[in-house]
């Protein structure tokens, strides 16, 4: 059986103040998959991603990235992952080129390879004319491009995108969709969270809906979105929002 790109088993995350963000969450994403991870705000999506990438410490459970334990073999596991976070966790005084270059450096990329890769990414994301500006001077859309380029600089096998198109204009969103579809076709595994159901429906083949820290529903896109009311209805039912809505009427 091939090693999955990501295998999360019984993940539980309790924050220091006692908030239970993730409760017994299990998930397997095969290599090459385009996986949609849906759920309302506070459902535990970002916390799960933070546990996978090392930004948060899991309280219980195991996470394997291409068979490597994300906690015990964290260095080896992290080499394989690229994270585009929801928030701009970037030095605001640095310029896009520096930001991407530093990240490549952290991942051990030699200077020549970094340059080649950064040149390509700057061009690909139309950042060439902005690459020497401070990050804080850029528009929201340009900032989003920078963090995306940063996530891709080391050519990761598993790309985690936490709401990558939030606050992005229609043009960039579409360009991004095409790019993601292209790299997924090339074999990259992508885990995407988004509040835009259209985006998930367009890109993802597998979908998991998370609610209150647990997987509420998981399956292929056809399976989940194929029913009456499509993905939106499935989402509302899985997250309990539909029941709440009916109860409120």
């Amino acid at each position, binding site marked *: 059986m091939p090693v999955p790109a990501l295998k999360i088993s019984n993940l539980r995350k309790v924050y220091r103040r006692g908030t239970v963000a993730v409760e017994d969450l299990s998930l397997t994403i095969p290599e090459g998959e385009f996986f949609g991870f849906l759920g309302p705000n506070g459902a535990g999506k970002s916390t799960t991603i933070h546990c996978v990438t*090392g*930004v*948060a410490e899991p309280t219980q459970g195991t996470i394997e990235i291409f068979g490597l334990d994300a906690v015990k073999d964290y*260095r080896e596991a992290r080499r394989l992952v690229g994270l585009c976070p929801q928030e701009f966790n970037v*030095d605001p005084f640095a310029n896009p080129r520096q930001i991407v270059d*530093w990240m490549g450096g952290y*991942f051990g990329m030699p200077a020549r390879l970094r340059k080649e890769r950064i040149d390509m990414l700057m061009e*690909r994301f139309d950042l060439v004319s902005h690459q020497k500006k401070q990050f804080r001077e850029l528009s929201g859309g340009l900032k989003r491009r920078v963090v995306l380029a940063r996530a891709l600089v080391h050519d990761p096998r598993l790309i985690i995108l936490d709401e990558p198109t939030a606050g992005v204009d229609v043009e960039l969103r579409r*360009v991004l969709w095409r790019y993601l579809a292209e790299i997924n076709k090339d074999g990259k595994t992508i885990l995407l969270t988004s509040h835009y159901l259209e985006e998930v429906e367009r890109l993802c083949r597998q979908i998991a809906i998370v609610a209150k820290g647990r997987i509420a529903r998981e399956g292929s896109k056809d399976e989940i979105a194929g029913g009456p009311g499509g993905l939106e209805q499935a989402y509302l039912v899985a997250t309990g929002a539909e029941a709440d809505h009916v109860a409120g009427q």
Partner: protein
Amino acid sequence: MTPMAVETPMTAEALATMDLNKPLGVNWIGLFTMVRREVSRMMRVPIQAFIAPWISALLFIFIFGAVVGSRITQIGGHRYLEFVLPGIIMMNVINAAFLQSSSAIYFSRFIRFVEEILVAPLSYVEMIAGSLSVVVLRASVTGVGILVMGLAFGATHIHSWPLFLFWVASVSGVFGLLGIIVGLWSKSFEQLNMPVVFFLTPLSMVGGVFNTVAMLPDWLRWLAWANPFFYFINGIRGSMIGFDETPPGLGIGLTLLLLTVLGVTVWRLYSKGYGLRE
């Protein structure tokens, strides 16, 4: 945005370099990148990082050399300025080291770009070594800059270069580690500045910068012996003018012990994710 085209392929050599099946050794490039990044951040504020301590030291040289120094008798056969200058260097080394590490870690937590390091394949030792390298660099440039001014004005000399470098590097390491702990602990800029106001400045002022232990009243001498800053200042003074008030090896032993204890503490904090991970 550029139309989607075929992505530039990574070269075979590049792919070999990035061989993901190869076990990870020391991430030298990552370590060097941490240094490059912090140096770039430091160079955004050259006045704060270097010019301010150098100007302040220059004023000390002027006041203790030309104004006050001429009215004070020699201490241990040395002019007062010669006696004071090593302490001034050490005070600036301590400040530079502490401010560099505490502000770097706090700023990166505050803006959350510390997550760039957390998601990277860097070991905790590499993360700490990367931070400390810049600390030692900044403290050394600050200290050596003041020394050069002292030498230029004939205000000092060097008795032992290896010992001088040992004291600059080891003490900046101690305060770099201490700065990391404070940077991890602080939840506000107010907390970040507290140790400087209540701990660093007072202890260095009473740590023998301006006086010998013998100049203190008997009942107050224990304060000097109990103050670690005294050993640092005394140590660098010994390396510069050969004037040493402590038993041989005591200051070096204490400094190495502090480096070890603080190093292990910081490593434990990193491995637990204290102040770093949610």
